[in-house]
């Protein structure tokens, strides 16, 4: 990592890696000319844990638990990508009810993840009332997950070949009640996002990415869909029960920060709709199918739509009890590339919300614990400094 300025009149604003407001470590450097950002770079790895290497030394079943722990927000979708890949290699398919249960967890996870993001993004812009309300409402879906699995975060529903537990009717009824409440709240948030003057002032026309840029920069998920780049693994290559219970893709044309808010809120409402449909037509079957302990040699690519976008697993087996190689490419890594490019030309004060706009997830793309030496450099801003700067700038 170098800090040498690249020109005479450049000023570099390094931020992080520890910042109390963004909850995970990451280091950014913005090159500024006055107020305008002319260059940006990112240094990740502060929470790299060596999971891909670790996977090569664990059995297929042990790896299921390891993969679930890549991310604390979207643990289910990692496990789903992994088990679906292993099932493909083994030539088995999970029973219909198990696949429907996988979809139910995936959509509940999306609801909690999007609501978490809504709060964080609002907070970075200084809209703390919205942050507190959306996180209060997110508790409703966290309680559902706890009721289903006993856990708020690692619900651990998947097994290689199926799922661990069933969802009884009474629980579905309880979830429906919660969804009715959430739907009402989301309509309110949509109204706030679309009609609150100060909110629009900080989001409309900010961080705009065209469809061409989104495609070239490899944007994924809601970040791409807000730029009218219409792809969603759930629709394009249905997995789990998405063929039986499809979702409608949500896209927006504008490509700015505002569009990213609208797309995520509408997607959350779409999740609620599809959950009701699954509950109305829940297939009956057993929950697991038998899978051999040794997985036949071969390679597979397993893609799923995580809350932040396409999650890509490359899994290779040499016919043994342990995988030869597991490559995990998380959606946040793709979206970082877009931030570095989009930051250029914007005001420094807009950086917190542009960064938060992609819903960055560090653990996802870092995976080795490392403690950074304390830097006593007065030029280093904390995230809180930058966030306050942004709020003061627009006051």
């Amino acid at each position: 990592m170098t800090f040498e300025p690249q020109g005479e009149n450049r000023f570099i604003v390094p931020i992080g890696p520890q910042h109390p407001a963004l909850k995970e470590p990451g280091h950014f450097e913005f090159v500024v000319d006055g107020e305008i950002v002319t260059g940006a770079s990112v240094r990740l790895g502060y929470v790299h844990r060596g999971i891909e290497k670790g996977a090569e030394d664990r059995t297929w079943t042990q790896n299921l638990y390891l993969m679930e722990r890549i991310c604390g927000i979207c643990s289910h979708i990692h496990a789903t990508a992994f088990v679906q890949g292993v099932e493909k290699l083994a030539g088995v398919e999970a029973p219909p009810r198990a696949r429907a249960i996988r979809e139910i967890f995936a959509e509940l996870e999306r609801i909690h993840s999007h609501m978490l993001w809504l709060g964080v993004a609002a907070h970075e812009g200084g809209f703390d009332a919205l942050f507190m309300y959306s996180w209060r409402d997110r508790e409703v879906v966290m309680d559902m997950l706890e009721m289903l699995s006993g856990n708020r975060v690692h619900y651990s529903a998947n097994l290689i070949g199926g799922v661990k537990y069933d969802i009884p009717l009474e629980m579905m009824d309880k979830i429906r009640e919660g969804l009715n409440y959430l739907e009402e709240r989301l309509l309110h948030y949509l109204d706030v996002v679309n009609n609150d003057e100060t909110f629009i002032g900080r989001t409309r026309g900010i961080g705009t990415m065209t469809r061409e840029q989104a495609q070239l920069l490899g944007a994924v998920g809601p970040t791409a869909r807000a730029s009218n780049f219409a792809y969603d693994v759930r629709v394009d290559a249905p997995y789990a029960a998405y063929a039986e219970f499809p979702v409608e893709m949500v896209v927006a044309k504008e490509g700015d920060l505002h569009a990213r808010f609208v797309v995520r809120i509408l997607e959350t409402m779409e999740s609620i709709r599809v959950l009701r449909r699954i509950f109305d037509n829940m297939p009956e079957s057993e929950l697991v199918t038998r899978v051999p302990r040794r997985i036949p040699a071969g390679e597979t690519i397993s893609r799923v739509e995580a809350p932040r976008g396409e999650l890509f697993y490359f899994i290779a087996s040499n016919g043994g009890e342990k995988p030869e190689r597991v490559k995990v490419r998380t959606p946040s890594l793709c979206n970082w590339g877009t931030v570095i490019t989009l930051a250029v030309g914007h005001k420094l004060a807009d950086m917190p919300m542009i960064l938060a706009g992609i819903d960055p997830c560090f653990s996802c793309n870092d995976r080795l614990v490392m403690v950074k030496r304390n830097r006593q450099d007065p030029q280093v801003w904390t995230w809180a400094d930058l966030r306050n700067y942004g709020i003061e700038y627009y006051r």
Partner: protein
Amino acid sequence: MSATEQILQNAQNLLQPFAQSFNSPEPNRLDVFLRRENLLPAIKALIEARWGYLSTITGIDRPAATVEAGQTPVEGEIEVLYSFCSGAAVVSLRVRVPYSDAVLPSICPLIPSATLGERELMEMFGVRAEGTPDTSRLILADSWPEGVYPLRKSFVPPARVSGAAEGG
């Protein structure tokens, strides 16, 4: 012909001039084996035809097989996969480079965001992406020793070495 098959067929037509061979390991996948000098032209062909997007760059270590008496030893290689996706279709451009000459041209002039994948490849496998704009550490710690590539099979994490010494 399904839509996915059609998309894969298009990719195969585009990549025909550059490929050594093709393989379809799964109905939605096409593997394209390339020499490294054909990597950039092949990617350029995909981009100009607006075929999908680069989903990820994956490295795989292919260490040399144990040599039996009388055979010439073969050098280990790193295989690199550039996976492009379009709908359900996945095309993987596969290039192999030997340990002693682990260099690939950077694809950043064509796809700027590929720099993150290339930096990962340099740190974890020791495959240099020549011309990539930023070669500073992305993932590994600043104190990580030079020339140690954790995702090569020859790298054994320290804990496992001590376990073996105890006979475990």
